[in-house]
């Protein structure tokens, strides 16, 4: 509130600023009292039950196995490491989920606006079915009803001795880069840099002469072709480690466990239904007049999309899209229901159970998700403030 004006008889209770200070003090007192109360309770309760506090437990040996880990992990590692393993697994499934959900969601959103009635209605069915069924149920469905129907390892479905699909998961060959593979990486980097340079050059040429240099094929060539050529010149320095059936299971190669597949399927499909709606409304929000105006100026179909429709609809799409990404990340915690070893499952689940350090563990777990959310929202607000259409 701005400066008020003095004078007159000001009785204190009627001064709005004093009132506001008073209310705020009361609010602080309530919140502080509440926290003090529960902390006090927690302390007495934990003391009474002989529960130790603190983060010391993180250095203790975990002693249990985790089926999927992106970093080296054995049972002798510490709980701190199980935390990292879980976090990485959460990030892995979230990132891939986001990637696929975006693709499927955009396809469905665009299908929803197709000129083909049948496609439009099919997309509508897809959206209405999948977003109105609980995600957990979808996860169960994929895991317990669909993937469970796959054959046993000995009867795997196979593709060319390289890919095997069975109830234990999907097995794929693992690429082992040999000597000289580094050159391929260098070529790839060179390709990316080259493409960027070409992009800058093309822009300059267009500004100066108006000539439009085609970008698609050269970029493709530089980013994919160049590394490929280098790869073959270097004598194909890449070997594959094929999965083999040894004893009970396939070993070697890359294994994708069914828990992961089920979670990924369910997250992708569920979220893509929401993304499709986001995309549809984003595109519909660009008025028909805009496309008409662009056509009337003689822009081609592709230019219309690239220069007019997409830039405008992306502004509308991106904030709710980010929300969906956050939802997906949070929803990945349902992994615990089927035993995919994500953060909640290994840390807030097994670790909590082994150590009994409920407060610390839940606190850390929530902290992780909260950090992800807040950082993303902050980035989003920044983006919005940059991209908001300027009005008067």
């Amino acid at each position, binding site marked *: 509130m701005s400066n008020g004006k003095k004078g007159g008889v000001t009785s204190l209770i009627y001064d709005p600023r004093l009132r506001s200070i008073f209310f*705020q003090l009361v609010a602080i007192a309530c919140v502080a009292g509440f926290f003090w109360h529960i902390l006090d309770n927690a302390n*007495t309760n934990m003391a009474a039950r002989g529960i130790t506090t603190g983060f010391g437990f993180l250095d203790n040996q975990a002693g249990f196995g985790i089926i999927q880990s992106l970093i080296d992990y054995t049972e002798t590692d510490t709980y701190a490491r199980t935390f990292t393993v879980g976090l990485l697994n959460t990030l892995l499934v979230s990132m891939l989920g986001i990637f696929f959900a975006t693709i499927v969601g955009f396809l469905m959103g665009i299908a929803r606006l197709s*000129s083909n009635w*049948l496609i439009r209605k*099919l997309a509508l069915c897809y959206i209405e079915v999948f977003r*109105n*069924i609980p995600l957990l149920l979808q996860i169960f*469905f994929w895991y317990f009803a669909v993937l469970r129907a796959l054959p046993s390892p000995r009867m795997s479905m196979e593709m060319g001795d390289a890919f095997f699909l069975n109830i234990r998961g999907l097995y794929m060959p693992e690429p082992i880069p040999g000597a000289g593979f580094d050159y391929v990486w260098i070529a790839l980097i060179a390709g990316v840099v080259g493409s960027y340079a070409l992009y800058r050059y093309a822009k300059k040429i267009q500004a100066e002469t108006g000539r439009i240099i085609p970008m698609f094929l050269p970029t493709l060539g530089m980013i994919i072709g160049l590394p490929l050529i280098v790869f073959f010149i270097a004598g194909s320095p890449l070997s594959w480690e094929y999965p083999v059936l040894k004893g009970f299971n396939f070993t070697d190669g890359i294994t994708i466990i069914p828990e992961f597949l089920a979670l990924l399927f369910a997250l992708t499909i569920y979220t893509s239904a929401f993304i499709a709606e986001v995309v549809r409304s984003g595109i519909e929000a660009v008025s028909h007049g805009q496309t008409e105006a662009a056509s009337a100026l003689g822009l081609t179909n592709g230019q219309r999309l690239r220069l007019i429709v997409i830039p405008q609809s992306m502004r509308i799409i991106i904030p709710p899209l980010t929300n969906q990404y956050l939802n997906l990340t949070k929803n990945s915690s349902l992994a615990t229901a089927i035993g995919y070893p994500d953060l909640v499952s290994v840390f807030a689940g097994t670790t909590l159970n082994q150590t009994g350090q409920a*407060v610390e563990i839940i606190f850390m777990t929530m902290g992780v998700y909260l950090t*992800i959310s807040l950082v993303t929202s902050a980035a989003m607000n920044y983006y919005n403030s940059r991209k908001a259409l300027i009005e008067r």
Partner: protein
Amino acid sequence: MPNIPSDTLTPPQPENATGYKPLPDRAAPGNTVGIIGWVRANLFNSVGNTILTLIALYFIYQAAAWFLDWGIINADLAGDSAEACTSSGACWVFIKARFPQFIYGFYPSDEVWRINIMFGLFAFCIIGLVVDSIPGKKWFAIFTLVIFPVLAYYLMLGGAFGLEKVGTHRWGGFSLTLILAMVGIVASLPIGIVLALGRRSEMPIVRSICITYIEFWRGVPLITVLFMASVMLPLFMTAGTDTDKLVRALIGITMFQSAYMAEVVRGGLQAIPKGQYEAAEALGLGYWKKTGLIILPQALKLMIPGIVNTFIALFKDTSLVLIIGLFDLLAIVQSAITDPNWPQVSVEGYLFVAFMFWICCFSMSQYSQRLERKFSTGHKTA
């Protein structure tokens, strides 16, 4: 004016220049109207679309054929035990046999009438609220939000009015799902209103407290909240406080949900034009009277679609209580599926749950979309 040859000033006169008669409408060229026109325009208007149409038709045919075959033609419906499932199709007998359990959970079968009454009352409330032609929406709303919960509480729990007490550990199935969602919404609404008002307050500390609360709960997954409620809440309570598992879950859900509700309420408050606040102030109404008499009554109406949408989200999310060991609809079906007495019935079971959830969520979302459309046209003119 540029010089234009004089003959152009009298343009070629059409034949009907002297006596204008409206031409009759002609029918459009045959291939652009009617069913054929529609099919051409909507299904086969280009090569790409034709291919898409054919592919889509093929898939629809496949799916429909499979479902007809598995779910209807070859399905078993008669009988009441696993032995009745002999054919290759779906075993709907399973659903039939377990249906009461799916709906009522472990509620004692002699007392099930109580749940039925609750369902009946609930349907009564909903019909009263949703059907436009029924007057007295305000009273229905008050009944639903205030009286119905009390009635339902005593009906379900018993222990008073001569009703046998049925502990919450025997609640389950669809009725539990409904209870979780209802309580979640009804309890989070007032908290959400307070939070939203706080978030719009001019007092920085109150505002930041509310923002912190809202952003905190919106930033964490519900499942961690449920974990917290089930694992940590007992630690935070004074020793010896009786904490029923269901109550703890409900506390968690309510805290979580109130943050989302606060955002819905805020949306409603923001939609009220500034002039309404000013007019109320100019009439001498203080903050609480202004809010209670002018702003909230209008905002609440605008919030209904938002509330329904939150309700849908919550309704789906209640299935997570399975993870902390409550037997909602999904959990009870899930555990029934593992019954060794029944053969492979997981697809049937999941389909049944999916169908129940879908029907509820889909009809609610249609309702909220209808309301949104109504408000988007209605409010401007009002």
